[in-house]
């Protein structure tokens, strides 16, 4: 048996013994044995511990538990036994009682080793050792005592002698009498240093600017700060238990003890109540269904990629340009409804911002989802629109302002391009009629017809054989030959105007009875000499204000309408014959319904006169003196109308456009209906004038409105009776300023080109080409 095994065996035995001893024997015995056993086997114990089974440990535990703390303490202190002799535990009296030779107790005090902490200091070697005797004993000697080595301590120099000495020495400022060890020179202290030393001596804080009496900042006060200095949670030691709560708790405890409160209720009772609210699981019975037209399974979403990560790789992050592009895109057009965003860490990820919105949209989807199968008509909405040619194909039409005619003071009320297309005549509020060079905007002729009244309308006589301009101002109509034409035409024009003088003279003078009648036709008179010089040849004095002039195609007749409400119905519409200087009033009575007449036009080819009052347009056959047709455009107040120039010649029927003050532009096909074929409402304000392009070459028409704009339309009429007119809006021409609620007052077309001229309330006319 090797020693190890033997010791092991012994140990086991001792243990057993110990156990038994612990139970049966006294403390001392077991203590001694134990001490020895443990100290002997100290090395082996650590080794054997690995091998020993659990029961061994349990035994030990049991044992140690049963023992008092005394033994433990002993065993712990075994290694430090030797030290205990030298060094007493703090607080223990540093005295040992030793038997002396006589057998008496002898108190041996430990030597005191004053360490750094000790209050004892080493004796000053130079201290006076004379003890407690008065110093005056040494008055006679030069010394005052002895130091610890027995050397004399010499008496320090007395005040007087010192003073005398000091007085005899001149001390430099800051002299200390010390030597600076660093330099070897006398150490001199500056004032600041001296002050510093003083402060040190006075136990003050030596640094400058320190205020010892600063007001106290109460960092830690009873007040609760919004931002506390420390983020540490309140320590538990500050917790002051509430007495009230204690009472309540105690009450509860008491109640529980007495069984009045049962802390764990039986859960069965709850279930019965909750059964009343039934939560449905929509997808509970969801089963795989085969693919079908009416069943579209939810698409399987791909697993989220890097982009969806809260911390995607840098290449997935959009740069500022991409971000901007994404933000500017319409939400519906976006490829993804989110932008990859780097939050750095998961805890920085904010709440889902569009949570509420998304929830709302989902609910909306569910709400709006059709519950009935609906068969949807799959028609391209484009195909329902009429096929209109694009404006590009319908060129030319006026697109831009080419010339501005500036000169009129106040509004320009009327504008007309002469039949040759070289000149433009305008009339305005300033009472002047002006003729301009059309292309350059140069004023060629101006005549002031009236000082008070505005020129309401100017119209050129159609036909190229003569140049005659009719203008209405106040109650009068003026026929003028502007001095801009060559002598031959001027002569011809004058002849046309002058021919009637003789006819008028030869006419029998009106009888007295006729003279008394109200609707006595006016006689044409010669103008005043100033007007004659200006070029005016004939004046027709009507008694009421004519607002519209319209020439017959042949240039011998023109019709004027006095649209004022006070005008008697019998004289409101008058037809003037230039060759006879004759004015006739064809209508005796008021037109039935629709208020006073507004404007009138001759049919371009047939002997038909169209008269518009506020709500209807009537067509009268002049040769048969019959009412042919009544049109009801449906407008509340007709401002103007125009007859298609090729009406009845190219096509079977007449086409008329009507503009109204209630913002409507109406196209009438006379053969179709007395109601408008088309109603165009594109203007914001009243339409003042409408006009067809006079030549058949361009199927254009235009309107002028108080909103300051002109609109150009394509309106082609075909000879085919079955096909309707094509109307295409082409262009809105803006440029006229709105002045006093009025925009564009009149419009006219160039006789050949697709150019139009507008008269504006801002005092300008504009040529658009």
């Amino acid at each position, binding site marked *: 048996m090797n020693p190890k095994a033997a010791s092991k065996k012994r140990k086991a035995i001792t243990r057993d013994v110990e156990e038994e001893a612990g139970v049966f024997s006294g403390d001392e015995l077991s203590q001694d044995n134990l001490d020895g056993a443990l100290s002997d086997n100290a090395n082996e114990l650590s080794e054997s511990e690995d091998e020993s089974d659990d029961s061994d440990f349990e035994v030990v535990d049991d044992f140690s538990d049963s023992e008092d703390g005394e033994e433990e303490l002993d065993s712990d202190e075994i290694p430090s036994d030797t030290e205990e002799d030298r060094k007493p535990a703090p607080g223990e009296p540093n005295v040992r009682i030793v038997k002396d030779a006589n057998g008496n107790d002898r108190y041996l005090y430990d030597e005191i080793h004053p360490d750094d902490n000790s209050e004892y200091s080493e004796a000053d070697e130079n201290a006076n050792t004379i003890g407690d005797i008065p110093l005056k004993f040494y008055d006679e000697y030069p010394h005052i005592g002895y130091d610890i080595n027995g050397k004399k301590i010499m008496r320090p120099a007395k005040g007087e002698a010192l003073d005398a000495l000091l007085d005899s020495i001149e001390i430099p400022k800051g002299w200390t009498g010390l030597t600076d060890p660093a330099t070897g020179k006398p150490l001199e202290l500056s004032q600041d240093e001296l002050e510093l030393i003083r402060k040190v001596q006075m136990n003050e804080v030596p640094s400058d600017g320190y205020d010892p009496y600063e007001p106290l900042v109460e960092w830690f006060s009873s007040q609760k700060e919004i931002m506390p200095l420390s983020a540490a949670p309140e320590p538990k030691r500050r917790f002051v238990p509430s007495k009230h709560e204690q009472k309540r708790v105690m009450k509860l405890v008491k109640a529980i003890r007495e069984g009045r409160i049962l802390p764990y209720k039986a859960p069965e009772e709850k279930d019965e109540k909750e059964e009343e609210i039934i939560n449905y699981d929509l997808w509970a019975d969801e089963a795989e269904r085969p693919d079908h037209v009416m069943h579209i399974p939810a698409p399987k979403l791909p697993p989220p990629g890097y982009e969806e990560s809260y911390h995607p790789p840098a290449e997935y992050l959009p740069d500022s340009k991409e971000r901007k592009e994404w933000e500017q895109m319409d939400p519906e057009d976006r490829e993804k409804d989110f932008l990859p965003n780097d939050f750095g860490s998961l805890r920085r990820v904010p709440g889902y911002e569009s949570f509420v919105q998304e929830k709302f949209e989902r609910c909306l989807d569910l709400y709006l989802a059709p519950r009935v199968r609906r068969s949807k008509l799959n028609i391209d909405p484009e195909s329902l629109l009429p096929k209109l040619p694009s404006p590009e194909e319908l060129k030319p039409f006026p697109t831009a302002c080419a010339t501005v005619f500036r000169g009129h003071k106040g509004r320009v009320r009327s504008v007309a391009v002469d039949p*040759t297309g070289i000149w433009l005549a305008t009339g305005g509020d300033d009472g002047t009629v002006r003729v301009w060079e059309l292309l350059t905007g140069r004023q060629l002729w101006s005549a002031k017809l009236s000082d008070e009244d505005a020129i309401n309308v100017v119209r050129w006589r159609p036909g190229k054989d003569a140049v005659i301009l009719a203008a209405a101002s106040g109650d009068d109509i003026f026929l003028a030959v502007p001095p801009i034409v060559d002598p031959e035409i001027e002569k011809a024009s004058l002849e046309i105007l002058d021919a009637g003088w003789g006819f008028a003279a030869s006419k029998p003078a009106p009888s007295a009875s006729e003279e008394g009648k109200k609707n006595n036709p006016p006689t044409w008179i010669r103008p005043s000499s100033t007007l004659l010089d200006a070029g005016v040849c004939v004046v027709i004095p009507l008694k009421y204000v004519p607002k519209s002039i319209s020439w017959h195609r042949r240039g011998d007749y023109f019709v004027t309408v006095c649209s004022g409400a006070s005008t008697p119905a019998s004289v409101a519409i008058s037809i003037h014959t230039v060759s006879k200087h004759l004015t006739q009033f064809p209508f005796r009575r008021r037109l039935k319904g629709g208020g006073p007449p507004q404007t009138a036009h001759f049919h371009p080819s047939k002997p038909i006169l169209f008269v518009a009052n506020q709500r209807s347009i009537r067509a009268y056959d002049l040769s048969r003196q019959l009412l042919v047709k009544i049109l009801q455009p449906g407008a509340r107040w007709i401002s103007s109308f125009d007859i298609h120039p090729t009406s009845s010649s190219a096509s079977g029927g007449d086409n008329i456009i009507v503009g109204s003050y209630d913002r409507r532009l109406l196209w009438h096909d006379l053969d179709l209906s007395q109601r408008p074929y088309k109603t165009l409402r594109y203007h914001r304000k009243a339409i003042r004038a409408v006009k067809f392009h006079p030549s058949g070459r361009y199927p254009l028409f235009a309107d002028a409105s108080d909103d300051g704009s002109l609109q150009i339309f394509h309106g082609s009429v075909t000879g085919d009776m079955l096909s309707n007119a094509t109307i295409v809006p082409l262009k809105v021409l803006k440029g006229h300023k709105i002045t006093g609620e009025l925009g564009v007052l009149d419009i006219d077309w160039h006789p050949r080109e697709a150019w139009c001229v507008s008269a504006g309330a801002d005092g300008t006319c504009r040529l658009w080409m």
Partner: protein
Amino acid sequence: MSEDQIMSGASEAAQRQVRVQLTSQQEDIALPESTGPILVPTGLRRYALSTLVNNLLSSEKPIPFEFLINGTFLRTSIDEYLIDNGISAETTLEIEYVRALIPPLHIASFQHDDWVSSTDVLSTTSPAASWASGATVKKGQERLLSGSYDGLLRIWNMSSETIATSPAATEGGHTASIKATKFVSPNQIASAGLDRTVRLWKYTEDEGGFAGKIAPQLELYGHKSGIESLSVHAKSNRLLTGSSDHTVGFWSTKKADAPAAPESLLPSSARNSKRRKLNSSVSTAQRGPLSLLSGHTAPVSAAIFDAKDATVGYSASWDHSLRTWDLVTGGLVDTRTTSHSLLSLEHLPELNLLAAGTAARHITLIDPRASATTVAAMTLRGHTNAVVSLARDPHSTYGLISGSHDGTCRIWDIRSTKTDKEGVIGESVYSITRKSLEEEGKADSKRVGGEGVKVFSVCWDKTIGIVSAGEDKRIQINRGEGVLSSKA
């Protein structure tokens, strides 16, 4: 085939390079035949290319060049051009170079009392001087002629002094606005206007050249409406006018040649109203037209002689047509109908093209020859209002200047074109705005319809430069700085 490697810098050496073949149609600046394709960095721009060509030509004085690639002026670097046009850098680029047109600078403006409708120049290089038989024009004695809406002709020297003014209406002058005027010779002037007459004037100048006199010589009656344009062929003493009465007038400047004036058109035969008090106190010989060529159905806006053959006349009209006339017989030779009203006309003889300015804001180039298949060979776009005046570039057969109612004159090089869906489209090289607009501090502001700044007439002379007249009551002279020196 020699290949020159042009390394203009270590940094550019790494760049892409492209092979270019530099050509020129002008003999004096053409590269020697041996110069083959050159490898150049694609980063080069016009200036660098210009320097390169100057180096190759080893010209003493650098000549600025412009570069045309496929009919387009190079305005970017070659690289950008290649990318824009999708051309591979491996192809050989055909680059044609021409003398650069230096931007025309404003030289002077001469203020008038009224709108200036027409202008002409008299200088050593002007057509009037070349036709001069007796008097010649001295260098430095250039004269400007202007016809104004107030009915007066004015002769200016180059230091903005009026040397002579035509007499007023009562003394034999125009009774209405002048619309066109031209020097026939250094001492004869023709003018026409809204008073339906063409007037010939004798212009005399005193020795110092500081004063002159315009005396009425001949009045030509025949048109029944305002005359819009006037063209002169002094060698054959013929005038061509276009009038609003739809006719083209063909006149002689010789009193002896001209037939008698039609009685009905003389002012004395007009109505006996007392407001006809403009009867001139000076009696001038009155004559009629050699012929009135009718055929147009709308006002004739321009009538010109063929630049090579004075027996051929061209006229442009508002009726959209351009007509060729045989002036000897007075017969209509050809009619070319376009789609817009034509307002001005100029002949480019070397290219056999007629440039016509339209009311639709562009210039149409028309080949008048019978063999031409298409009506419009090319369209020059850029103006924003009617183009009412055209003039040839005296330096280049490809150059053209146009004056428009939008208040600008534009210089065109018809080589600088691109092909569009509407055909061949040209773009202007330079645009000259009115100085009056700049002086008002509204150079950038756009006038609606060119109001107040419309250009009515433009004239381009080798010596004087570009002279334009307009609604701002000025004639304005612009000149390309250095153009003269490089051509001298």
